[in-house]
């Protein structure tokens, strides 16, 4: 039997029970729990990545998890108040910190084994997160990834708002993936109303998404070699990503596309975009040709941070990481995209080099897609009425499949849940460290380039 792919697992509070929704790639399971004494049977022995989902359910709702091998808090840190913020009865805004309660890290014991704690504040300009290594000399024996430092309580904040009001928060969940989040939101708006999705508008939205992907890949195309000590690549690629960001601003009115996915196509100069894409393609080809000749770089890239296809599958890994390990997962793999020139990109080894090469391949494919997405101007009516129901949406962000769930009640959001690809991929990160030394960690981490803000919510 084919193993199902776990997509998400989350809780909803109904008036007389807690409902646990578990989304697989081919079915959705629902389980009702008693409201006074909610206990949920863990599925983490079958799906390792269910662990974070379940720990989050426990922190958010105070639902007890039975049979879990990891019962530590996830979102609630050492001084986080003792509250279950996602329960409907919880309405307070300002809460006192509780007394410091130490967190027990996952470590490996033994003679000569020592621990290295990195973060939450890092040396570079990145978001906060904690990495806890167990080391035997330089070799990494184990890594625990600990996150949720940027936890902003977004799920709760959105409750009670209507779909249109929620937009400005949803697009700021993760700045690098803003357009993907907006598209997931738009998809739900579309399902919930009688909106007529115009083909031209759809193409414009998809164009923006590909542009966002290119910027993300270009950035990594510079940062990965930089983390291996080859700074020239960063200068080159960061110039290209800045150029592309300027184009995104012209096309959408914002450097990160905030506020760009809506009900009309902004007027733009088609020829200018085509010219830009031609130059960009040439420059990336030049870059590829240049960088392939730097042996010391590939010495660092090749066979570093390997994630096998089998592991990628059992951890239900998504996006760039999955495709680099030979998994064929991409939410864009549908008729509409294929018609416009989408080809699913793949690598086989699953190491840093694969992820680097895959990003370059995807840039070419996205450039091709954008050429085909260029179309005319249009404007559609903004919907005002939304039907009460539950809606789900999937969008392939620059990191991987983004899942969004919204339940509307009386026209307002009753439950908002979203799962960034990072939430799953972070849980698989430690698998890539087994054969490497700690000095490779920044490189491996950068090759995955996962989101902290999208993960933490």
């Amino acid at each position: 039997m084919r193993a199902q792919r776990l997509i998400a697992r989350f809780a909803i509070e109904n008036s007389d029970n807690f409902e646990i929704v578990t989304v697989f790639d081919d079915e959705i399971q629902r389980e009702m729990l008693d409201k006074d004494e909610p206990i949920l049977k863990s599925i983490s022995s079958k799906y390792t990545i269910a662990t974070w989902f379940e720990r989050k359910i426990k922190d958010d709702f105070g639902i007890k998890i039975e049979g879990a091998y990891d019962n530590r808090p996830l979102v609630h840190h050492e001084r986080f108040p003792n509250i279950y913020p996602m329960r409907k009865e919880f309405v307070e805004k300002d809460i006192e910190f509780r007394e410091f309660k130490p967190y027990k890290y996952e470590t490996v014991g033994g003679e000569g084994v020592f621990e290295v704690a990195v973060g939450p504040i890092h040396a570079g300009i990145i978001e906060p997160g904690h990495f806890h290594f167990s080391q035997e000399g330089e070799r990494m024996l184990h890594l625990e990834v600990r996150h949720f430092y940027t936890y902003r309580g977004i799920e709760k904040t959105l409750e009670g708002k209507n779909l249109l009001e929620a937009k400005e928060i949803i697009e700021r969940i993760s700045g690098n993936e803003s357009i993907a989040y907006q598209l997931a939101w738009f998809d739900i708006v579309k399902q919930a109303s009688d909106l007529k999705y115009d083909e031209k508008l759809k193409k414009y939205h998809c164009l923006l998404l590909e542009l966002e992907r290119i910027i993300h890949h270009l950035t990594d195309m510079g940062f990965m070699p930089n983390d291996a000590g080859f700074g020239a690549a960063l200068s080159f690629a960061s110039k290209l990503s800045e150029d592309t960001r300027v184009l995104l601003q012209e096309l959408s009115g914002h450097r990160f596309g905030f506020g760009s996915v809506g009900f009309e196509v902004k007027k733009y100069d088609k020829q200018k975009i085509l010219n830009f894409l031609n130059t960009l393609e040439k420059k990336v080809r030049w870059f590829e040709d240049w960088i392939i000749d730097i042996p010391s770089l590939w010495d660092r890239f090749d066979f570093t941070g390997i994630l096998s296809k089998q592991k990628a599958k059992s951890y239900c890994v998504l996006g760039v990481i999955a495709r680099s390990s030979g998994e064929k997962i991409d939410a864009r793999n549908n008729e509409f995209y294929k018609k416009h020139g989408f080809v699913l990109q793949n690598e086989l080894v699953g190491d840093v080099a694969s992820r680097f090469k895959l990003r370059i391949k995807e840039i070419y494919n996205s450039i091709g897609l954008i050429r085909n997405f260029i179309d005319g101007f249009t404007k559609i009516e903004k919907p005002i009425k939304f039907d009460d129901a539950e809606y789900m949406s999937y969008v392939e962000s620059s990191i991987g499949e983004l899942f969004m769930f919204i339940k509307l009640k009386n026209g307002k959001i009753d439950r908002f849940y979203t799962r960034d690809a990072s939430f799953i991929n972070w849980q698989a990160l430690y698998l890539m460290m087994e054969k490497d030394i700690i000095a490779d960690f920044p490189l491996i981490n950068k090759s995955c380039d996962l989101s902290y803000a999208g993960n933490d919510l």
Partner: protein
Amino acid sequence: MIKFWQERVKNPISTKNLECDSKLKEIKKELKSVIGKKFAGSLAIRMVSSGSCNACEAECNALSNPYYNLERLCMHFVASPRHADIILLSGVVSANMYHHILNVYQQMPQPAYIVTLGDCPLLQGVFQENFAIKGAKSLGLPIAYHINGCPPNPQEIITGLLEFLKSLG
């Protein structure tokens, strides 16, 4: 490597930015004198995110790209608060980051300045105070300057930093 040098000779400067370059030149003059006087010629900045959406950080990273190249303006990002003159603080100051930010401030040599970046820290944007969001004011630390925007673009950050330096008198 030969390809690189060939390209380099063929297209010596490819990051001309007419509008921005002339502006930066002017800013540079002003900056040099302030930074020269106040910070012995170089301003060390520690960027700390306290729960942002990452766009503010991305713009700070963009400051190092060849178009803006912050270092030519006598400013550079450092890896530790112990090396820093100022903190550039982005994000909403989440409950989970609150004590870490206080810690960062304590690690800094005095005089230490906090410059808040983006709409988030002062809760002027879409994120408002809640059980997980504290806001920079709740830290009880002096905030020397604030740079608006969601996110402020690289030019706005540079001009903001200049204004901050001028405000020091």
